[in-house]
């Protein structure tokens, strides 16, 4: 199609929207709500991803060995565990090293431990196992428990595991909600476009008699749907950005109170805004086009 025809399509598409202002507004609202929810879910998912990543790098299991464990047994266990799937690193911490570390941590009060050096050291030998992903934790703990020389196990990865699980859950649940809202938006927009198709049915009829191709008739309506979707996407992105700005401002308070956890750090705005805008636009335009195609399909038979 020629450039001229595109001028015709776009002009007509916008005329359609202006003729049915109330319905256009309803459509924009519907798609805005759907995309707003999508945007919020995206923001949460992005943040959770980074959070899980941070926690994963901190994920460790400590296993304490029984006192009677020989050096030979110890090496066997070490080599064995190193070969397991999901084990990133295994480090041996002798009872002496553990005591030194504790003493350092106590700082000024380090001399409290003076009577416990050498033979009297109450701390056990231990291994520090670093894990690649939270999914592996349960499995590795199970296997470690089965080793006779292991006295006790200490791991604090349940939080990370929960967040990983939560992030996946949010994504599935979110996709579901977005899908439902998208269907609602398609229905509302297709009704809007159907109204403009109806109000222009005489014109369509005349166009058919004069010999307009189906695509010549379709394009203005597709552009109408597309523009409605785009406006909805823009507005919803503004809303998401506004809400996220509020969240960042409030998170300063959280930081002061629980900052030491170091995981509740929200991503900066510029990391969020662009992907949300692009994804919302894409979904909005697709929904608009789909809705238009549905509503003009049966009106083209002349």
């Amino acid at each position: 199609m020629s450039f001229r025809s595109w001028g015709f399509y776009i002009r007509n598409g916008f005329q359609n929207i202006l003729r049915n202002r109330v319905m256009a507004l309803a459509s924009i609202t519907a798609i805005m709500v759907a995309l707003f929810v999508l945007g919020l879910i995206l923001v949460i998912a992005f943040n959770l991803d980074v959070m899980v990543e941070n926690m994963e790098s901190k994920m460790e299991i400590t296993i304490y060995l029984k006192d009677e464990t020989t050096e030979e047994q110890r090496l066997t266990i070490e080599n064995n565990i190193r070969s397991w799937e999901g084990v990133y690193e295994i480090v041996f911490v002798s009872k002496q090293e553990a005591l030194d570390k504790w003493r350092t941590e106590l700082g000024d009060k380090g001399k409290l431990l003076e009577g416990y050096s050498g033979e009297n050291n109450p701390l056990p030998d231990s291994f520090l196992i670093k894990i690649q992903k939270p999914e592996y934790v349960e499995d590795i703990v199970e296997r470690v428990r089965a080793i006779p020389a292991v006295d006790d196990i200490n791991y604090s990865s349940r939080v990370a595991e929960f967040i990983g699980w939560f992030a996946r859950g949010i994504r599935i649940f979110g996709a579901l909600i977005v899908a439902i809202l998208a269907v609602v938006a398609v229905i509302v927009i297709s009704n809007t476009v159907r109204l403009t198709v109806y109000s222009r049915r005489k014109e369509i009829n005349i166009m058919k008699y004069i010999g307009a191709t189906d695509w010549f008739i379709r394009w203005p309506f597709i552009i109408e749907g597309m523009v409605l979707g785009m406006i909805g996407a823009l507005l919803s992105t503004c809303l998401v950005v506004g809400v996220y700005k509020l969240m960042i401002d409030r998170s300063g308070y959280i930081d002061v109170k629980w900052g030491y956890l170091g995981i509740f750090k929200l991503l900066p705005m510029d990391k969020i805004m662009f992907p949300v805008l692009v994804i919302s636009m894409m979904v909005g335009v697709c929904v608009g086009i789909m809705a238009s195609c549905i509503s003009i399909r049966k009106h083209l038979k002349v």
Partner: protein
Amino acid sequence: MIVFQNVSKMYVNGVYALYNVNFEIENGEFVFIVGASGAGKTTLIKLLLKEIEPTSGSIFVDGVDITAMKRREIPYYRRKMGVVFQDFRLLPDKTAYENVAFAMEIVGASGREIRRQVPAVLGLVGLGSKAHDYPHQLSGGEQQRVALARALVNNPSLLIADEPTGNLDPVTSMDIMRIISMINKRGTTVMVATHAKNIVNAMRKRVIQFNKGILVRDQREGGYFDEL
């Protein structure tokens, strides 16, 4: 050239709108299609425009069987014809000029072609001075002239008119028929479906008459007979 070969059209209620119709129309001819309401005139035009499909038989236009035509070819086929209706079918929010230009926009004509062709055609139908009036500012006869200009602007080889004078007074009707006749003299094949007795009788052109879907008369230089 148009050829109808054993064409029948049955509607879903089992009634034949046209039954076993055969005729040929040469290029450049002027033909009246006459008959009472429900005789099958409109069905004939819809078949020719490929708005509906015949139940049986073949329709050839310029040697091509249009019943076998693909859906996407229909728009290009229709560009060979201009159509006018009893109710004019102009777009109310466009001026006379814009209504005619619209037909050229649809087929992708350039701005320069539109600016040259539209005034020429409006002049041909005698509406040059009212080009920028809206349909509601024009009389019935003037609106039908706009419709004629729109039908002609893309230089069709066939002009189809379905009751073109149905909403017009006798004097205006004769004006419109004079314009259609002039178009025919320029080489365009013309097909006029009507039951305006005085017009058919006055013009003495070929007449094809239908009665309850059956072609009952095909006469050169005929008149309009109520009965047979």
